[in-house]
């Protein structure tokens, strides 16, 4: 997968802000909290309200 394809749009359930999360940053800016066979849960921080949110993405998108 090319690096530019790792960007996913995420919407904060608190403030409604949509921002892009780089899945290549998992382990650095974003934390992987669950990796299943199909999906993975990643903890991200909303850039506006600064609250931690959980986003579920397909597991194969993570390196």
């Amino acid at each position, binding site marked *: 997968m090319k690096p530019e394809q790792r960007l996913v749009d995420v919407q904060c*359930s608190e403030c409604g802000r949509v921002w892009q999360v780089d899945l290549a940053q998992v382990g650095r800016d974003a934390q992987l909290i669950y990796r299943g066979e199909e999906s993975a849960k990643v903890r991200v921080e909303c850039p506006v309200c600064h609250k931690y949110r*959980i*986003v579920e993405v397909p597991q194969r998108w993570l390196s």
Partner: protein
Amino acid sequence: MSDAAGSGKIFSATPETTEDKALREWWAAQALGSLDNLETAARQIITLCTTLLGSLLAVLALAEDPLPAYLAARAVRLAGGAGVLLLLGGLAAALVVVWPRRYAAAPDLPAQQRQAFTAMRQFKARALTASLALFGLGLAALALVLLLALRLAA
């Protein structure tokens, strides 16, 4: 979910569960407290190394005149010498953990502070690992000296 990332789909980010939040905070506290834990462990090793060195030197009884008969055995002398060196090495490595060093990080650059913190933690962890290994080997050497001394004294 669409097949490729960056396809325009917006993923909804949900709040953390109470358990996730508690775990994250616990891990963050552990990470920040790790330096203190490493230094506490190093101080414990310093105490143990010092005590065991005293015990080893007492067994070797180098100040006694005449020297104990078991010191004539080459194995006792070798194991004793190795034990002293290993315990001194463990002591030195543990002192490296608690010895203050200079780390520079700008107060307004969290990334640089994180980098300095990680470097500090890795350095202390490596020194403590070396100290633990040397201490363990020194302990084994002391045990060997004690066993040999008991056997030869009997």
